[in-house]
Protein backbone atom coordinates (compact mmCIF):
# COMPACT_ATOMS: atom_id res chain seq x y z
CA UNK A 1 0.00 0.00 0.00
CA UNK A 2 1.36 3.41 -0.89
CA UNK A 3 0.94 6.67 1.01
CA UNK A 4 -2.15 7.98 -0.82
CA UNK A 5 -4.02 4.71 -0.34
CA UNK A 6 -3.24 4.63 3.39
CA UNK A 7 -4.59 8.17 3.77
CA UNK A 8 -7.73 7.33 1.79
CA UNK A 9 -8.36 4.21 3.91
CA UNK A 10 -7.93 6.18 7.14
CA UNK A 11 -10.53 8.70 5.98
CA UNK A 12 -12.88 5.90 5.00
CA UNK A 13 -12.77 4.52 8.55
CA UNK A 14 -13.18 8.00 10.05
CA UNK A 15 -16.35 8.57 8.04
CA UNK A 16 -17.83 5.19 9.01
CA UNK A 17 -17.03 5.99 12.65
CA UNK A 18 -18.73 9.38 12.27
CA UNK A 19 -21.77 7.62 10.84
CA UNK A 20 -21.94 5.30 13.85
CA UNK A 21 -21.45 8.16 16.32
CA UNK A 22 -24.10 10.31 14.66
CA UNK A 23 -26.77 7.67 15.07
CA UNK A 24 -26.07 6.97 18.75
CA UNK A 25 -28.99 7.61 21.06
CA UNK A 26 -31.52 7.93 18.25
CA UNK A 27 -34.13 5.37 17.44
CA UNK A 28 -33.79 4.68 13.76
CA UNK A 29 -37.33 4.92 12.52
CA UNK A 30 -37.86 5.66 8.83
CA UNK A 31 -38.45 9.29 9.73
CA UNK A 32 -35.14 9.50 11.62
CA UNK A 33 -33.10 7.52 9.12
CA UNK A 34 -34.36 9.39 6.09
CA UNK A 35 -35.17 12.92 7.18
CA UNK A 36 -33.60 13.35 10.62
CA UNK A 37 -36.94 13.83 12.38
CA UNK A 38 -37.38 17.25 10.66
CA UNK A 39 -35.05 18.86 13.18
CA UNK A 40 -32.10 20.20 11.15
CA UNK A 41 -31.04 23.82 11.66
CA UNK A 42 -30.00 26.24 8.92
CA UNK A 43 -26.33 25.25 9.05
CA UNK A 44 -26.96 21.54 8.45
CA UNK A 45 -29.44 22.30 5.68
CA UNK A 46 -26.87 24.54 4.02
CA UNK A 47 -24.12 21.93 4.36
CA UNK A 48 -26.28 19.12 3.03
CA UNK A 49 -27.67 21.11 0.09
CA UNK A 50 -24.17 22.32 -0.73
CA UNK A 51 -22.79 18.85 -0.04
CA UNK A 52 -25.14 17.25 -2.53
CA UNK A 53 -24.12 19.81 -5.12
CA UNK A 54 -20.38 19.52 -4.62
CA UNK A 55 -19.74 15.87 -5.18
CA UNK A 56 -16.77 14.08 -6.65
CA UNK A 57 -18.29 15.11 -9.98
CA UNK A 58 -17.37 18.72 -9.17
CA UNK A 59 -13.74 17.67 -8.78
CA UNK A 60 -13.28 15.23 -11.65
CA UNK A 61 -16.17 15.85 -14.05
CA UNK A 62 -15.98 19.64 -14.06
CA UNK A 63 -12.22 19.79 -14.48
CA UNK A 64 -12.62 17.13 -17.18
CA UNK A 65 -15.22 19.21 -18.99
CA UNK A 66 -12.98 22.30 -18.86
CA UNK A 67 -10.07 20.18 -20.08
CA UNK A 68 -12.07 18.71 -22.98
CA UNK A 69 -14.40 21.53 -23.95
CA UNK A 70 -13.10 24.74 -22.36
CA UNK A 71 -15.73 27.43 -21.87
CA UNK A 72 -18.67 24.98 -22.10
CA UNK A 73 -17.78 24.04 -18.51
CA UNK A 74 -18.82 27.54 -17.36
CA UNK A 75 -22.44 26.41 -17.64
CA UNK A 76 -22.09 24.77 -14.22
CA UNK A 77 -21.32 28.03 -12.45
CA UNK A 78 -24.05 29.83 -14.38
CA UNK A 79 -26.86 27.39 -13.63
CA UNK A 80 -25.85 26.85 -10.01
CA UNK A 81 -25.97 30.59 -9.32
CA UNK A 82 -29.35 30.93 -11.03
CA UNK A 83 -30.77 27.67 -9.69
CA UNK A 84 -29.93 28.29 -6.06
CA UNK A 85 -31.80 31.61 -5.90
CA UNK A 86 -35.01 29.77 -6.71
CA UNK A 87 -34.64 28.21 -3.25
CA UNK A 88 -36.15 31.42 -1.85
CA UNK A 89 -39.57 30.86 -3.41
CA UNK A 90 -39.77 27.19 -4.28
CA UNK A 91 -38.49 25.42 -1.20
CA UNK A 92 -40.58 27.03 1.58
CA UNK A 93 -43.95 25.90 0.14
CA UNK A 94 -42.56 22.41 -0.62
CA UNK A 95 -41.24 22.15 2.93
CA UNK A 96 -44.49 23.42 4.43
CA UNK A 97 -46.64 20.95 2.54
CA UNK A 98 -44.27 18.08 3.39
CA UNK A 99 -44.35 18.98 7.07
CA UNK A 100 -48.12 19.31 7.27
CA UNK A 101 -48.72 16.05 5.42
CA UNK A 102 -45.87 13.92 6.82
CA UNK A 103 -44.18 13.57 3.45
CA UNK A 104 -40.79 11.81 3.59
CA UNK A 105 -39.90 11.33 -0.09
CA UNK A 106 -40.33 13.08 -3.41
CA UNK A 107 -42.61 10.43 -4.85
CA UNK A 108 -44.77 10.68 -1.75
CA UNK A 109 -45.00 14.42 -2.32
CA UNK A 110 -46.56 13.71 -5.71
CA UNK A 111 -48.82 10.90 -4.53
CA UNK A 112 -50.24 13.03 -1.70
CA UNK A 113 -50.41 16.31 -3.57
CA UNK A 114 -52.15 14.78 -6.57
CA UNK A 115 -53.99 12.17 -4.48
CA UNK A 116 -52.83 9.38 -6.74
CA UNK A 117 -51.09 6.15 -5.82
CA UNK A 118 -50.29 5.53 -9.48
CA UNK A 119 -48.48 8.84 -9.84
CA UNK A 120 -46.48 8.03 -6.72
CA UNK A 121 -45.36 4.71 -8.18
CA UNK A 122 -44.44 6.41 -11.45
CA UNK A 123 -42.45 9.24 -9.82
CA UNK A 124 -40.63 6.72 -7.62
CA UNK A 125 -39.56 4.77 -10.71
CA UNK A 126 -38.51 7.90 -12.62
CA UNK A 127 -36.60 9.15 -9.57
CA UNK A 128 -34.71 5.89 -9.22
CA UNK A 129 -33.98 5.69 -12.95
CA UNK A 130 -32.72 9.29 -12.88
CA UNK A 131 -30.40 8.48 -10.01
CA UNK A 132 -28.81 5.54 -11.83
CA UNK A 133 -26.56 7.62 -14.13
CA UNK A 134 -25.61 9.84 -11.19
CA UNK A 135 -24.71 6.93 -8.90
CA UNK A 136 -22.83 5.45 -11.86
CA UNK A 137 -20.84 8.71 -12.02
CA UNK A 138 -19.93 8.31 -8.38
CA UNK A 139 -18.71 4.75 -8.79
CA UNK A 140 -16.83 5.59 -11.96
CA UNK A 141 -15.18 8.50 -10.16
CA UNK A 142 -14.27 6.24 -7.29
CA UNK A 143 -12.60 3.86 -9.75
CA UNK A 144 -10.72 6.68 -11.46
CA UNK A 145 -9.68 8.10 -8.11
CA UNK A 146 -8.28 4.92 -6.63
CA UNK A 147 -6.71 3.73 -9.86
CA UNK A 148 -4.89 7.04 -10.27
CA UNK A 149 -3.84 7.58 -6.65
CA UNK A 150 -2.61 4.02 -6.26
CA UNK A 151 -0.40 4.81 -9.25
CA UNK A 152 -2.01 1.94 -11.14
CA UNK A 153 -1.52 -0.69 -8.41
CA UNK A 154 -5.28 -1.15 -7.98
CA UNK A 155 -7.25 -1.43 -11.23
CA UNK A 156 -10.43 0.61 -11.43
CA UNK A 157 -12.91 -2.30 -11.41
CA UNK A 158 -11.50 -3.57 -8.09
CA UNK A 159 -11.74 -0.03 -6.75
CA UNK A 160 -15.38 0.20 -7.87
CA UNK A 161 -16.34 -2.99 -5.99
CA UNK A 162 -14.46 -1.96 -2.86
CA UNK A 163 -15.95 1.53 -3.08
CA UNK A 164 -19.44 0.13 -3.51
CA UNK A 165 -19.12 -2.04 -0.41
CA UNK A 166 -17.77 0.95 1.53
CA UNK A 167 -20.72 3.07 0.45
CA UNK A 168 -23.21 0.33 1.38
CA UNK A 169 -21.71 -0.16 4.84
CA UNK A 170 -21.80 3.59 5.28
CA UNK A 171 -25.47 3.90 4.27
CA UNK A 172 -26.58 0.96 6.41
CA UNK A 173 -24.94 2.17 9.61
CA UNK A 174 -25.58 5.87 9.44
CA UNK A 175 -28.59 7.39 7.69
CA UNK A 176 -29.03 11.12 7.18
CA UNK A 177 -27.46 12.05 10.53
CA UNK A 178 -24.22 10.39 9.48
CA UNK A 179 -24.31 12.11 6.11
CA UNK A 180 -24.75 15.47 7.77
CA UNK A 181 -21.76 14.94 10.06
CA UNK A 182 -19.53 13.56 7.31
CA UNK A 183 -20.71 16.43 5.18
CA UNK A 184 -19.08 18.92 7.55
CA UNK A 185 -15.71 17.15 7.25
CA UNK A 186 -16.14 16.76 3.51
CA UNK A 187 -17.11 20.37 2.85
CA UNK A 188 -14.13 21.62 4.80
CA UNK A 189 -11.79 19.30 2.86
CA UNK A 190 -13.26 19.97 -0.57
CA UNK A 191 -13.23 23.72 0.04
CA UNK A 192 -9.59 23.65 1.07
CA UNK A 193 -8.47 21.28 -1.69
CA UNK A 194 -10.27 23.10 -4.53
CA UNK A 195 -9.14 26.53 -3.38
CA UNK A 196 -5.58 25.36 -2.91
CA UNK A 197 -5.34 23.57 -6.28
CA UNK A 198 -7.06 26.39 -8.16
CA UNK A 199 -4.76 29.05 -6.73
CA UNK A 200 -1.52 27.11 -6.48
CA UNK A 201 -1.46 25.42 -9.90
CA UNK A 202 -1.85 28.57 -12.08
CA UNK A 203 0.71 30.44 -9.96
CA UNK A 204 3.13 27.52 -9.95
CA UNK A 205 3.04 27.05 -13.71
CA UNK A 206 2.20 30.51 -15.08
CA UNK A 207 2.73 33.07 -12.31
CA UNK A 208 -0.98 34.06 -12.18
CA UNK A 209 -4.46 33.10 -13.46
CA UNK A 210 -3.99 35.65 -16.25
CA UNK A 211 -0.79 33.85 -17.27
CA UNK A 212 -2.80 30.65 -17.34
CA UNK A 213 -5.49 32.10 -19.60
CA UNK A 214 -2.88 33.57 -21.94
CA UNK A 215 -1.17 30.18 -22.17
CA UNK A 216 -4.53 28.53 -22.91
CA UNK A 217 -5.45 30.97 -25.67
CA UNK A 218 -2.00 30.46 -27.20
CA UNK A 219 -2.45 26.70 -27.67
CA UNK A 220 -6.25 26.66 -28.09
CA UNK A 221 -7.44 30.11 -29.16
CA UNK A 222 -11.13 29.20 -28.93
CA UNK A 223 -11.14 27.33 -25.61
CA UNK A 224 -12.18 30.37 -23.56
CA UNK A 225 -15.36 31.12 -25.50
CA UNK A 226 -18.23 29.00 -26.74
CA UNK A 227 -17.79 27.71 -30.30
CA UNK A 228 -20.11 28.68 -33.18
CA UNK A 229 -21.36 25.13 -33.54
CA UNK A 230 -21.93 22.25 -31.13
CA UNK A 231 -21.57 23.47 -27.55
CA UNK A 232 -22.51 26.93 -28.77
CA UNK A 233 -24.36 29.86 -27.21
CA UNK A 234 -27.73 28.22 -27.83
CA UNK A 235 -26.52 25.00 -26.18
CA UNK A 236 -25.28 27.07 -23.24
CA UNK A 237 -28.46 29.11 -22.80
CA UNK A 238 -30.82 26.13 -23.15
CA UNK A 239 -28.77 23.94 -20.81
CA UNK A 240 -28.40 26.63 -18.16
CA UNK A 241 -32.11 27.45 -18.38
CA UNK A 242 -33.41 23.91 -17.86
CA UNK A 243 -30.79 23.04 -15.25
CA UNK A 244 -31.60 26.15 -13.20
CA UNK A 245 -35.32 25.50 -13.63
CA UNK A 246 -35.02 22.02 -12.13
CA UNK A 247 -32.22 22.73 -9.70
CA UNK A 248 -33.91 21.33 -6.60
CA UNK A 249 -35.74 18.45 -8.28
CA UNK A 250 -33.17 15.80 -7.37
CA UNK A 251 -34.84 13.05 -5.36
CA UNK A 252 -31.93 13.24 -2.92
CA UNK A 253 -32.55 16.95 -2.33
CA UNK A 254 -36.04 16.16 -1.07
CA UNK A 255 -35.02 14.56 2.27
CA UNK A 256 -32.73 17.52 3.01
CA UNK A 257 -35.55 19.94 2.33
CA UNK A 258 -37.95 18.03 4.59
CA UNK A 259 -35.25 17.68 7.28
CA UNK A 260 -35.21 21.43 7.90
CA UNK A 261 -36.62 22.85 11.12
CA UNK A 262 -38.01 25.99 9.47
CA UNK A 263 -38.56 27.71 6.12
CA UNK A 264 -36.27 30.63 6.84
CA UNK A 265 -33.27 28.37 6.25
CA UNK A 266 -34.17 28.13 2.55
CA UNK A 267 -34.43 31.89 2.13
CA UNK A 268 -31.04 32.34 3.77
CA UNK A 269 -29.62 29.58 1.58
CA UNK A 270 -30.72 31.54 -1.49
CA UNK A 271 -28.35 34.29 -0.32
CA UNK A 272 -25.42 32.02 0.50
CA UNK A 273 -25.47 29.31 -2.16
CA UNK A 274 -24.80 31.48 -5.28
CA UNK A 275 -21.57 32.88 -3.88
CA UNK A 276 -20.59 29.44 -2.63
CA UNK A 277 -20.93 28.28 -6.23
CA UNK A 278 -17.85 30.33 -7.10
CA UNK A 279 -15.85 27.41 -5.76
CA UNK A 280 -16.32 25.81 -9.18
CA UNK A 281 -14.20 28.61 -10.64
CA UNK A 282 -11.10 27.11 -9.07
CA UNK A 283 -11.88 23.73 -10.57
CA UNK A 284 -11.89 25.42 -14.00
CA UNK A 285 -8.41 26.76 -13.25
CA UNK A 286 -7.26 23.19 -12.57
CA UNK A 287 -8.81 21.90 -15.80
CA UNK A 288 -7.22 24.68 -17.85
CA UNK A 289 -3.81 24.13 -16.24
CA UNK A 290 -4.05 20.47 -17.22
CA UNK A 291 -5.09 21.46 -20.75
CA UNK A 292 -1.75 23.17 -21.28
CA UNK A 293 0.43 20.94 -19.14
CA UNK A 294 -0.88 17.53 -20.18
CA UNK A 295 -1.38 17.73 -23.94
CA UNK A 296 -1.11 13.94 -24.26
CA UNK A 297 -3.94 13.12 -21.81
CA UNK A 298 -6.83 11.32 -23.53
CA UNK A 299 -9.49 11.16 -20.84
CA UNK A 300 -10.30 14.55 -19.31
CA UNK A 301 -11.83 12.91 -16.25
CA UNK A 302 -8.27 12.08 -15.14
CA UNK A 303 -7.10 15.70 -15.62
CA UNK A 304 -7.31 16.86 -12.01
CA UNK A 305 -5.63 13.76 -10.64
CA UNK A 306 -2.90 13.59 -13.29
CA UNK A 307 -1.93 17.23 -12.86
CA UNK A 308 -1.91 16.79 -9.07
CA UNK A 309 0.30 13.72 -9.27
CA UNK A 310 2.65 15.55 -11.58
CA UNK A 311 2.90 18.49 -9.20
CA UNK A 312 2.60 17.23 -5.63
CA UNK A 313 4.05 14.73 -3.16
CA UNK A 314 2.14 11.46 -2.68
CA UNK A 315 0.79 12.48 0.73
CA UNK A 316 -1.04 15.43 -0.79
CA UNK A 317 -2.36 13.24 -3.59
CA UNK A 318 -3.70 11.11 -0.73
CA UNK A 319 -5.55 14.09 0.75
CA UNK A 320 -7.09 14.82 -2.66
CA UNK A 321 -8.09 11.17 -2.95
CA UNK A 322 -9.66 11.22 0.53
CA UNK A 323 -11.60 14.36 -0.41
CA UNK A 324 -12.87 12.58 -3.50
CA UNK A 325 -13.88 9.60 -1.38
CA UNK A 326 -15.93 11.72 1.05
CA UNK A 327 -17.36 13.62 -1.90
CA UNK A 328 -18.60 10.24 -3.13
CA UNK A 329 -19.91 8.93 0.19
CA UNK A 330 -22.04 11.94 1.17
CA UNK A 331 -24.01 12.44 -2.05
CA UNK A 332 -23.95 8.69 -2.77
CA UNK A 333 -25.52 7.87 0.58
CA UNK A 334 -28.14 10.61 0.14
CA UNK A 335 -29.05 9.20 -3.27
CA UNK A 336 -29.29 5.60 -2.13
CA UNK A 337 -31.34 6.58 0.93
CA UNK A 338 -33.76 8.68 -1.09
CA UNK A 339 -34.14 5.86 -3.64
CA UNK A 340 -34.86 3.42 -0.81
CA UNK A 341 -37.35 5.78 0.82
CA UNK A 342 -39.22 6.32 -2.43
CA UNK A 343 -39.42 2.59 -3.08
CA UNK A 344 -40.70 1.92 0.44
CA UNK A 345 -43.24 4.73 0.66
CA UNK A 346 -44.60 4.60 -2.85
CA UNK A 347 -44.14 1.10 -4.18
CA UNK A 348 -44.02 -1.35 -1.28
CA UNK A 349 -46.56 0.38 0.99
CA UNK A 350 -49.35 0.80 -1.55
CA UNK A 351 -48.87 -2.66 -3.07
CA UNK A 352 -48.42 -4.55 0.19
CA UNK A 353 -50.00 -2.41 2.92
CA UNK A 354 -49.76 -5.12 5.60
CA UNK A 355 -45.98 -5.34 5.70
CA UNK A 356 -44.46 -4.61 9.10
CA UNK A 357 -42.12 -1.63 9.57
CA UNK A 358 -39.22 -3.98 10.13
CA UNK A 359 -39.79 -5.79 6.85
CA UNK A 360 -40.24 -2.48 5.05
CA UNK A 361 -36.86 -1.29 6.28
CA UNK A 362 -35.36 -4.63 5.28
CA UNK A 363 -36.78 -4.55 1.77
CA UNK A 364 -35.58 -0.95 1.35
CA UNK A 365 -32.08 -2.07 2.27
CA UNK A 366 -32.15 -5.07 -0.06
CA UNK A 367 -33.20 -2.71 -2.79
CA UNK A 368 -30.29 -0.37 -2.01
CA UNK A 369 -27.87 -3.30 -2.44
CA UNK A 370 -29.38 -4.32 -5.78
CA UNK A 371 -29.29 -0.75 -7.06
CA UNK A 372 -25.64 -0.39 -6.06
CA UNK A 373 -24.63 -3.60 -7.80
CA UNK A 374 -26.43 -2.49 -10.95
CA UNK A 375 -24.70 0.90 -10.94
CA UNK A 376 -21.32 -0.75 -10.35
CA UNK A 377 -21.78 -2.81 -13.50
CA UNK A 378 -22.82 0.29 -15.43
CA UNK A 379 -19.82 2.22 -14.20
CA UNK A 380 -17.50 -0.47 -15.58
CA UNK A 381 -19.12 -0.76 -18.98
CA UNK A 382 -20.21 2.83 -19.51
CA UNK A 383 -17.90 4.70 -21.88
CA UNK A 384 -19.47 8.15 -21.66
CA UNK A 385 -17.66 10.94 -19.84
CA UNK A 386 -18.84 11.94 -16.38
CA UNK A 387 -20.25 15.18 -17.76
CA UNK A 388 -22.46 13.38 -20.30
CA UNK A 389 -23.93 11.06 -17.68
CA UNK A 390 -24.65 14.04 -15.44
CA UNK A 391 -26.60 15.78 -18.21
CA UNK A 392 -28.71 12.63 -18.75
CA UNK A 393 -29.63 12.46 -15.07
CA UNK A 394 -30.49 16.12 -15.08
CA UNK A 395 -32.72 15.83 -18.16
CA UNK A 396 -34.68 13.07 -16.40
CA UNK A 397 -35.33 14.89 -13.13
CA UNK A 398 -36.22 18.06 -15.02
CA UNK A 399 -39.39 16.32 -16.18
CA UNK A 400 -40.78 16.39 -12.65
CA UNK A 401 -40.44 20.15 -12.30
CA UNK A 402 -43.47 21.53 -14.19
CA UNK A 403 -46.18 19.61 -12.37
CA UNK A 404 -44.42 19.94 -9.03
CA UNK A 405 -44.16 23.74 -9.33
CA UNK A 406 -47.74 24.13 -10.49
CA UNK A 407 -48.97 21.91 -7.66
CA UNK A 408 -47.68 24.52 -5.19
CA UNK A 409 -50.35 26.97 -6.32
CA UNK A 410 -53.61 27.30 -4.43
CA UNK A 411 -55.73 26.31 -7.39
CA UNK A 412 -53.75 23.77 -9.31
CA UNK A 413 -55.19 23.43 -12.81
CA UNK A 414 -53.11 20.31 -13.42
CA UNK A 415 -54.76 16.93 -12.91
CA UNK A 416 -53.00 13.72 -11.93
CA UNK A 417 -53.54 12.47 -15.47
CA UNK A 418 -51.96 15.60 -16.96
CA UNK A 419 -49.02 15.39 -14.61
CA UNK A 420 -48.46 11.70 -15.28
CA UNK A 421 -48.90 11.88 -19.05
CA UNK A 422 -46.59 14.91 -19.38
CA UNK A 423 -43.84 13.34 -17.30
CA UNK A 424 -44.20 10.00 -19.06
CA UNK A 425 -43.69 11.52 -22.50
CA UNK A 426 -40.86 13.77 -21.28
CA UNK A 427 -39.02 10.85 -19.70
CA UNK A 428 -39.63 8.63 -22.76
CA UNK A 429 -38.07 11.27 -25.02
CA UNK A 430 -35.01 11.62 -22.79
CA UNK A 431 -34.49 7.87 -22.60
CA UNK A 432 -34.99 7.39 -26.34
CA UNK A 433 -32.57 10.19 -27.14
CA UNK A 434 -29.98 8.87 -24.70
CA UNK A 435 -29.99 5.33 -26.03
CA UNK A 436 -30.16 6.18 -29.71
CA UNK A 437 -27.80 9.14 -29.29
CA UNK A 438 -30.21 11.30 -31.26
CA UNK A 439 -29.28 14.96 -31.59
CA UNK A 440 -31.34 17.96 -32.56
CA UNK A 441 -29.26 18.14 -35.74
CA UNK A 442 -30.51 14.67 -36.72
CA UNK A 443 -34.12 15.60 -36.04
CA UNK A 444 -33.98 18.95 -37.83
CA UNK A 445 -31.19 18.68 -40.42
CA UNK A 446 -32.29 21.73 -42.37
CA UNK A 447 -32.69 24.16 -39.49
CA UNK A 448 -29.94 26.66 -38.56
CA UNK A 449 -27.41 25.62 -35.92
CA UNK A 450 -29.01 27.99 -33.39
CA UNK A 451 -31.83 25.46 -33.18
CA UNK A 452 -29.74 22.36 -33.81
CA UNK A 453 -27.46 23.09 -30.85
CA UNK A 454 -30.31 23.43 -28.35
CA UNK A 455 -30.11 20.99 -25.46
CA UNK A 456 -32.49 18.20 -26.44
CA UNK A 457 -33.88 18.30 -22.88
CA UNK A 458 -35.73 21.46 -23.99
CA UNK A 459 -37.78 19.42 -26.46
CA UNK A 460 -38.60 16.85 -23.78
CA UNK A 461 -39.56 19.57 -21.33
CA UNK A 462 -41.65 21.54 -23.83
CA UNK A 463 -43.52 18.41 -24.96
CA UNK A 464 -44.04 17.47 -21.33
CA UNK A 465 -45.57 20.88 -20.53
CA UNK A 466 -47.84 20.92 -23.59
CA UNK A 467 -49.15 17.41 -22.88
CA UNK A 468 -49.55 18.22 -19.19
CA UNK A 469 -51.80 21.20 -19.95
CA UNK A 470 -53.72 19.49 -22.72
CA UNK A 471 -54.47 16.30 -20.78
CA UNK A 472 -55.30 18.33 -17.67
CA UNK A 473 -57.75 20.38 -19.66
CA UNK A 474 -59.59 17.33 -20.94
CA UNK A 475 -59.54 15.41 -17.66
CA UNK A 476 -60.52 18.29 -15.39
CA UNK A 477 -64.12 17.13 -15.35
CA UNK A 478 -63.22 13.49 -14.77
CA UNK A 479 -61.18 14.39 -11.73
CA UNK A 480 -63.83 16.79 -10.45
CA UNK A 481 -66.35 13.99 -10.91
CA UNK A 482 -64.22 11.65 -8.84
CA UNK A 483 -63.98 14.23 -6.09
CA UNK A 484 -67.71 14.70 -6.21
CA UNK A 485 -68.20 10.96 -5.84
CA UNK A 486 -65.80 10.87 -2.92
CA UNK A 487 -67.70 13.67 -1.25
CA UNK A 488 -71.05 11.99 -1.74
CA UNK A 489 -69.65 8.76 -0.42
CA UNK A 490 -68.19 10.36 2.66
CA UNK A 491 -71.42 12.24 3.23
CA UNK A 492 -73.30 9.01 3.04
CA UNK A 493 -70.86 7.37 5.41
CA UNK A 494 -71.30 10.10 7.98
Amino acid at each position, binding site marked *: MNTPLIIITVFLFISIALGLLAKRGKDMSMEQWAIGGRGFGGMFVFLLLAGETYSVFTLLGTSGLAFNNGAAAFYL*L*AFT*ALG*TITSYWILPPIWKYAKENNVVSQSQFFSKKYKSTGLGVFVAIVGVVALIPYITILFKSMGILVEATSYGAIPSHVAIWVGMVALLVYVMVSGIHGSAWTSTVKDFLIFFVILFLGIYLPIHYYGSPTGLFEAVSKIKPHALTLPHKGLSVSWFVSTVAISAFAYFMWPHNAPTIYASKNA*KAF*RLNAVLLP*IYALMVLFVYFVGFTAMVQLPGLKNGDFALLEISMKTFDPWFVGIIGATGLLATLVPGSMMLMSAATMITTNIIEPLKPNVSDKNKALSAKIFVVLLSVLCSFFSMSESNTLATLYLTSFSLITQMAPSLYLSLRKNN*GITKYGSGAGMFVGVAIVIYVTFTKTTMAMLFPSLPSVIQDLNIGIIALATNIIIMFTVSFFTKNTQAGEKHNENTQSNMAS
Partner: protein
Amino acid sequence: MPNISTMFTILFFEGMGKMKLYYLLAVLPFIAILGGAAFVNKVEPYVLGIPFFLFWIILWAVLCSVIMFIIYRLDPLNKEDEV
Protein backbone atom coordinates in the same frame (compact mmCIF):
# COMPACT_ATOMS: atom_id res chain seq x y z
CA MET B 1 -62.36 26.19 -26.33
CA PRO B 2 -60.74 28.32 -23.61
CA ASN B 3 -57.39 27.31 -24.92
CA ILE B 4 -54.11 26.48 -23.30
CA SER B 5 -52.61 29.94 -23.64
CA THR B 6 -55.52 31.34 -21.65
CA MET B 7 -54.79 28.81 -18.98
CA PHE B 8 -51.14 29.88 -18.94
CA THR B 9 -52.12 33.51 -18.61
CA ILE B 10 -54.48 32.85 -15.76
CA LEU B 11 -51.95 30.70 -13.94
CA PHE B 12 -49.33 33.39 -14.39
CA PHE B 13 -51.23 36.51 -13.45
CA GLU B 14 -53.30 35.12 -10.65
CA GLY B 15 -50.32 35.31 -8.30
CA MET B 16 -49.02 38.65 -9.56
CA GLY B 17 -51.38 40.81 -7.53
CA LYS B 18 -49.95 39.76 -4.20
CA MET B 19 -46.35 39.72 -5.34
CA LYS B 20 -43.84 42.08 -3.81
CA LEU B 21 -42.26 44.25 -6.51
CA TYR B 22 -38.70 43.91 -5.23
CA TYR B 23 -38.92 40.18 -5.96
CA LEU B 24 -38.50 41.22 -9.60
CA LEU B 25 -34.85 42.04 -8.83
CA ALA B 26 -34.23 38.30 -8.97
CA VAL B 27 -35.12 38.31 -12.67
CA LEU B 28 -32.05 40.42 -13.50
CA PRO B 29 -29.46 37.61 -13.23
CA PHE B 30 -31.56 35.44 -15.53
CA ILE B 31 -31.75 38.19 -18.14
CA ALA B 32 -28.02 38.91 -17.80
CA ILE B 33 -26.82 35.31 -18.08
CA LEU B 34 -29.40 33.77 -20.42
CA GLY B 35 -30.08 36.85 -22.53
CA GLY B 36 -26.54 38.21 -22.35
CA ALA B 37 -24.60 35.08 -23.27
CA ALA B 38 -24.66 35.78 -27.00
CA PHE B 39 -23.21 39.28 -26.48
CA VAL B 40 -20.51 38.48 -23.93
CA ASN B 41 -19.12 35.32 -25.55
CA LYS B 42 -15.63 36.78 -26.08
CA VAL B 43 -12.16 36.63 -24.54
CA GLU B 44 -11.29 40.36 -24.70
CA PRO B 45 -11.33 42.50 -22.68
CA TYR B 46 -9.77 40.69 -19.75
CA VAL B 47 -11.26 41.96 -16.48
CA LEU B 48 -9.16 41.37 -13.36
CA GLY B 49 -7.10 39.00 -15.47
CA ILE B 50 -10.12 36.87 -16.41
CA PRO B 51 -11.49 36.45 -19.95
CA PHE B 52 -14.67 38.46 -20.42
CA PHE B 53 -17.17 35.59 -20.82
CA LEU B 54 -16.05 33.94 -17.59
CA PHE B 55 -15.89 37.32 -15.84
CA TRP B 56 -19.51 38.04 -16.80
CA ILE B 57 -20.70 34.79 -15.23
CA ILE B 58 -18.64 35.34 -12.06
CA LEU B 59 -19.97 38.89 -11.78
CA TRP B 60 -23.57 37.68 -11.94
CA ALA B 61 -22.98 34.82 -9.51
CA VAL B 62 -21.81 37.44 -7.00
CA LEU B 63 -24.72 39.73 -7.88
CA CYS B 64 -27.13 36.82 -7.34
CA SER B 65 -26.01 36.71 -3.72
CA VAL B 66 -26.13 40.51 -3.39
CA ILE B 67 -29.64 40.69 -4.87
CA MET B 68 -30.89 37.85 -2.71
CA PHE B 69 -29.41 39.54 0.35
CA ILE B 70 -31.33 42.73 -0.48
CA ILE B 71 -34.54 40.75 -0.97
CA TYR B 72 -33.90 38.83 2.23
CA ARG B 73 -33.52 42.05 4.22
CA LEU B 74 -36.52 43.80 2.64
CA ASP B 75 -38.90 40.87 3.01
CA PRO B 76 -40.89 41.05 6.26
CA LEU B 77 -41.20 37.23 6.12
CA ASN B 78 -37.66 36.91 7.46
CA LYS B 79 -38.27 39.12 10.49
CA GLU B 80 -40.56 36.59 12.08
CA ASP B 81 -38.78 34.15 14.34
CA GLU B 82 -40.53 31.00 13.25
CA VAL B 83 -42.14 29.78 10.01
